[in-house]
């Protein structure tokens, strides 16, 4: 039950405890936060299992870990470790250029990234239990997260307004299974919980996506690349709960020190953008 909560990237057990103390609902255990992965370049892979286990031992909240897109053996290893969720993540270097992991083959729930409704529904049909928009990880720039969340929600509203006989073509255009398209049109929401990731770096960013319609947020580099991680973590948690109360948002935003520096989107060459990974 992660809804309405904040999931934080952590690289050490100490980080994990800071996140738990701040009120995170889960932590994402990884060796490097996305901004460092971006800086380091090379091939980014699943974290060392002993590092994931160290974090699982440090906190009582759920622990997630990332597998490469399509790398079902990394997922098998993470499931064997007993992680609470697997993130099939574009932040790592994809292992398969056509296929995602068949998530129905696992007992552990998966979270997957998307940029639009079609991608979200393809991931749900593969068995994802949770969706997050990808944003552009490691940038500290919320613009992509906002664009993708608005895209997904607008596409859902568009489906909900369609006649039944228009849904067949809609499914074709979204490249998503008709049954899922029909269900979204009928219910007006995704069949699974819908979080936002990639670029959230202040309490105001978190409240922005919550007001637009996110059900919770992932914060990656935004916490442990800021000047005072414990305060930033706590402030983002408070802002996610009180996203609709500007007075409280003002209070929790005071004196947090410098957020992570951030990168404008135009400064990232097309080939280095992470959000385009996934099919």
């Amino acid at each position, binding site marked *: 039950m992660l809804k309405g909560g904040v999931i934080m990237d952590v690289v050490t057990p100490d980080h994990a405890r800071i996140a738990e103390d701040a009120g995170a609902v889960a932590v994402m255990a990884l060796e490097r936060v996305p901004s460092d992965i971006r800086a380091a370049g090379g091939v980014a892979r699943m974290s060392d299992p002993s590092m994931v286990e160290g974090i699982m031992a440090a906190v009582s*909240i759920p622990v997630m870990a990332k597998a490469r897109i399509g790398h079902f053996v990394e997922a098998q290893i993470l499931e064997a470790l007993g992680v609470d969720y697997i993130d099939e993540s574009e932040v790592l270097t994809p292992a398969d250029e056509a296929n995602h992991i068949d998530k129905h083959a696992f007992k552990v729930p998966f979270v997957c990234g998307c940029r639009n409704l079609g991608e979200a529904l393809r991931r749900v049909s593969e068995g994802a239990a949770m969706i997050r928009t990808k944003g552009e990880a490691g940038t500290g720039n919320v613009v992509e997260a906002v664009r993708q969340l608005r895209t997904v929600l607008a596409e859902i509203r568009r489906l909900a307004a369609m006649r039944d006989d228009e849904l067949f073509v809609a499914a074709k255009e979204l490249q998503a299974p008709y049954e899922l398209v029909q269900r979204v049109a009928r219910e007006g929401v995704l069949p699974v919980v819908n979080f936002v990731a990639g670029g959230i770096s202040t309490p105001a960013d978190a409240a922005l996506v919550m007001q637009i319609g996110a059900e919770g947020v992932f914060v990656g580099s935004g916490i442990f690349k800021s000047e005072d991680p414990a305060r930033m973590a706590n402030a983002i948690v408070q802002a996610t709960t009180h996203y609709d109360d500007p007075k409280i948002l003002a209070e929790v935003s005071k004196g947090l020190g410098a957020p992570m520096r951030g990168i404008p989107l135009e400064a990232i060459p097309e080939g280095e953008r992470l959000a385009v990974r996934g099919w």
Partner: protein
Amino acid sequence: MKIGVLAVQGAFIEHVRTFRSIGVETVEVRLPEHLEGVSGLVLPGGESTAQRRLIDRWGLRAPIERLAESGAPIFGTCAGMILLSREISGGEEPVFPLLDVSVERNAFGRQLDSFEADFDVPMLGTQPVHGVFIRAPIVDRAGPDVDVLARLDDGRIVAVRQRNVIATAFHPELAGETRFHRLVATMAAEHDDPGEGSGRRHHPTRRAGRSA
């Protein structure tokens, strides 16, 4: 009459929708002032660790305790059950020790062991309840003043009541189950307007102004 739903984190919107489906007004509770005028409160599923910190950060503990002491119904699901228990495995400090029970957090293991099951809740009638268990707690011990409302086939306790406090280890609100919410709404209405047993209502055959 309106029922508060603690909305600091978790699956609170599902409780709001369940109450709406049976025609009961709700208010989302994030600050103490949101509790004014509520006749009952739901503590929803979520991460109890995160919820506990938000409850304390915003000073919700004392006003919720006062609401419970007034006799208003308090209904906790999953993490809400943990928040209501007097003892929590691992020696964690209780939050609202209103139920004389011991609970074990994540009793069915980590996220891998979420499941659904059907079982009887005799108090709610003959139709079984479909329970959704997600990182669910379990009641290890129930004190003498606690009514056990439901057990799994293996005998483990998954729903309890002690006076005005009800808790389930599972999520009725995720399974389209409304009977617990109807019960809470009825208890809240009786809290607002005590009827039978309160001595305030006259027997219809009694004449006004004359004590029998």
